[in-house]
């Protein structure tokens, strides 16, 4: 009998990581002066800034909610963030990501505390190296906390996927481009609720199951770094 070990976590990926290993991660809260809250995040080669304004007055009446605040997100890539210069301004991809980012963050926020107002979240991709939407959501949560917005939980996001036939965590740009599938996930770690789930590529149900578990594990690790970033800025609880 031949046992084929498909997920041998001793064998390495192109960048030397194990299948369930994140790229080096750094999160810093409160990095901008004008914004009400902000965060800077690096994961692998990604450099991401998130800033929050609000709750503030909403001038667009047609989206105003009389009983709660609305959350608006803008995901934007710097023209110099990618190999070939990106034309400035929103394209279809960034509009979609902006929407799913708002959807991912919304469940965690006590929106009902701020009727008729808006909470604006701006995510700037200064440099992109795979997984920017997840990194953007993770950074935005820290920025929301830095802005003092009351929340049930710190949403955290991470992708898993499949490359070279293996289910892997936190795809790099190369793995995303040449890989078979990408599964970005965001969760509220306290309740375990999933607030973002996308898949593109080809996966069997078993592989999907594995990828989702892996992504949730990754989220939990990143969640610890989010908390550290806030503690670094504001000190220990009750401290």
């Amino acid at each position: 009998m031949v046992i084929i070990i498909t997920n041998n976590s001793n064998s390495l990926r192109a960048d030397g990581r194990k299948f369930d290993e994140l790229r080096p991660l750094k999160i810093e809260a409160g990095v901008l002066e004008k914004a009400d809250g902000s965060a800077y995040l690096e994961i692998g080669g990604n450099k991401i800034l998130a800033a929050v304004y609000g709750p503030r007055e909403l001038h667009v009446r047609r989206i105003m909610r009389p009983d709660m605040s609305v959350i608006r997100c803008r995901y934007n890539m710097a023209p110099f963030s990618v190999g070939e210069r990106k034309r400035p301004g929103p394209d279809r991809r960034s509009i979609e990501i902006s929407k799913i980012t708002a959807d991912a963050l919304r469940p965690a926020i006590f929106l009902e505390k701020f009727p008729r107002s808006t909470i604006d979240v701006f995510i700037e991709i200064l440099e992109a190296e795979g997984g920017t939407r997840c990194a953007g959501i993770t950074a935005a949560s820290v920025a929301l906390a830095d802005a003092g917005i009351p929340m049930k939980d710190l949403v955290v996001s991470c992708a898993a996927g499949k490359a070279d036939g293996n289910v892997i965590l936190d795809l790099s740009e190369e793995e995303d481009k040449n890989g078979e599938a990408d599964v970005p996930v965001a969760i509220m770690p306290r309740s375990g609720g999933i607030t973002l789930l996308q898949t593109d590529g080809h996966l069997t149900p078993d592989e999907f199951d594995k990828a989702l578990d892996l992504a949730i594990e990754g989220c939990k690790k990143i969640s610890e770094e989010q908390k550290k970033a806030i503690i670094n800025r504001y000190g220990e609880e009750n401290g």
Partner: protein
Amino acid sequence: MVNIVPEITRKSITELIKNKERADGRSPTDYRDISLEVGVIEKAEGSARVKIGNTQIIIGVKPSIGEPFSDTPNVGVLMTNSELLPMASPTFEPGPPDERSVELARVTDRCLREAPILDLEKLCIIEGEKVWMIFVDLHVLNYDGNLMDAAVLGSVAALMNTKIPNATVEDDKVVLDKENPVALPLKEKPLMCTFAKIDDELIIDPSLEEENVMNARISIGMREDGSICAMQKGGEMPITKEEAVYAVNTATEKTKELREHLP
């Protein structure tokens, strides 16, 4: 969005400046603290992060190969764009560039182009067909006044930091050697000094609260030899000829100081 300045703030800033003092303790000819780093974005062929006080801009340079303009078939193209990101200020909004953004990009562009910072003829690959197009993108991250001086200083540093693939022509085809990138053909390093007129005084490097109460603004772009390569007046009120001359003379001295920040 309209920016309403409380009368008491306007008064206190103006009174200070009448006595040649400023809210943050600077003299009328002092810059705030300046920091400049280059090579902050690896994906960009050149980049810089500049801070003047709390004003912060990241500048990225990306080259691409394109067709020259038909009236200048043998010169490369240098283009400057700016984005006033909504994260940089509560008064900046998403959407197409507004007039402030366009003014910043065009004044920076003029200052760089007219110097000229690059020998654009050396960026021609095949006359009339292929030239290098160099894009300078200004990404404003935090707005606390005086974007123009920061933009020019950072752009010069980013262009000095830029390495593009070596382009050669073989059988009428462009061959790029990405392994051995070359520096841009730098010719001149222009810098800019901006003054705000408050009451009847000119102060250098206005902070945002000073910009909010200023009557007029004047920016002077200078070459290394102290000659002028760009100028822009802004604001609602006029300035006198004496004030313009004073600004030029002061800028001559101040750009020398700014130049020490360049790598």
